[in-house]
């Protein structure tokens, strides 16, 4: 119903389809109480893949011969409403999809390691590269706000490594990763490990094209971290509890931590290990080898 004049549309109706777009057009001509002629044209459902729109335009022909035309959306305001229903990070999602397809085409599996700074990502990665050397071809993209210290720590272990310095940004995005793929994923690489910027909040929102997000949590951090930062621990189907060699010195409650993890991610695959002593490393290495089909 038109809010301006109260009339109902529906005298004539036509449906158009072409070029992937569909339009449903309704027209109505009627005489208003003051003798003016109203021509209503209502167009809805435009746009195949594009945004759907609803347009409602009026022509008012008055007795003096003047014709006024205006257009308004469903609310009766002079606005056109455009339905979108898209993800806000659509651009990143598209780049992530390109990365995923690029990796899939080469038989490469990517994992995205996310944790707080200081949870032991880089040491775990050093030991992982050493263990997989000669078994699974690995490559590493490592992200930090500044310095290439991590890349230097990881160099010389048989895997190509590139460092992305994100500067002000608190996470890696799919475009940054995509720009490095050709450089780092050389012949023979089957596993790409992306070590994200140390941060439990922001990296969770950005798909990089990985097969698995893997969250890390050290026993020095507190067992309730999955409840404090549930978005990451919910998004990550795999979680690694690190530095378990420190357990005798801490009040960390491992059982409560597992319960918190399963509360936010009931089907989580859990590893508990110490990269320093090697305890629990075998299961982790087996998992990665299995992930790439070895």
């Amino acid at each position, binding site marked *: 119903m038109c809010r301006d004049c109260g009339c109902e549309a529906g005298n004539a109706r036509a449906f158009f389809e072409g070029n992937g777009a569909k339009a449903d057009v309704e027209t109505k001509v009627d005489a208003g109480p003051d003798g003016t002629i109203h021509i209503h044209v209502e167009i809805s459902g435009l746009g195949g893949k594009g*945004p759907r*729109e609803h347009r409602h335009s009026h022509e008012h022909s008055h007795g003096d011969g003047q014709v006024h035309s205006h257009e308004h*959306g469903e*609310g009766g*305001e*002079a*606005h*056109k*409403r*455009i*339905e*979108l*229903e*898209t*993800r*806000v*990070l*659509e*651009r*990143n999602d598209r780049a992530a999809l390109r990365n995923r397809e690029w990796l899939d085409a080469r038989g490469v599996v990517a994992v995205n390691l996310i944790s707080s700074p200081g949870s032991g990502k880089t040491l775990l990665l050093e030991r992982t590269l050493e263990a997989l050397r000669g078994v699974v071809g690995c490559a590493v993209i490592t992200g930090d706000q500044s310095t290439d210290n991590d890349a230097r720590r990881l160099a010389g272990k048989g895997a190509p490594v590139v460092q992305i310095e994100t500067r002000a*940004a*608190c*996470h890696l995005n799919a475009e940054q990763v995509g720009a490095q793929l050709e450089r780092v994923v050389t012949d023979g690489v089957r596993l790409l490990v992306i070590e994200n910027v140390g941060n439990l*909040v*922001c990296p*969770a*929102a950005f798909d990089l094209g990985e097969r698995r997000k893997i969250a890390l949590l050290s026993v020095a951090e507190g067992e309730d971290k999955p*409840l404090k930062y*549930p*978005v*990451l621990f*919910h998004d990550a189907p795999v979680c690694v509890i690190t530095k378990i060699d420190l357990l005798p010195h801490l009040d960390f409650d491992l059982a409560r931590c597992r319960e918190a993890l*399963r*509360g*936010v*991610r*009931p*089907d989580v695959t859990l590893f508990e290990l110490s990269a320093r002593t090697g305890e629990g490393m075998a299961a982790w290495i087996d998992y990665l080898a299995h992930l790439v089909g070895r």
Partner: protein
Amino acid sequence: MHELGMASALIDQVGEIARREGATRIARIEVRIGALSGVDRDAFAFAFPIAAEGGLAEGAVLDIEDVPLVVDCRACGASTRPEYPIVLCAACGSGDVAVVSGEDFRIIAMEVE
């Protein structure tokens, strides 16, 4: 604090569509923030006008709808809203659930002039 980045991504996306539609101004933007989307409502509302400044969406009304976490339980069949941030069935406690809503951050619609 990635909400400014999120707000910029939103502004870029709606700006592109508005220009394609020949609009001169974006009057209103509707978004839906899921409880487990990782986007903080207040931080986003704060960042939005900063990201919008100087563009087609400057001065636009931001309409935020909060979407609760809803899970369907495969064990007991109930559809429940567990207490944030738990993702277990609120009826029987099972973890064998499918998340129905609450994970997404979406632009629903916009109004342009």
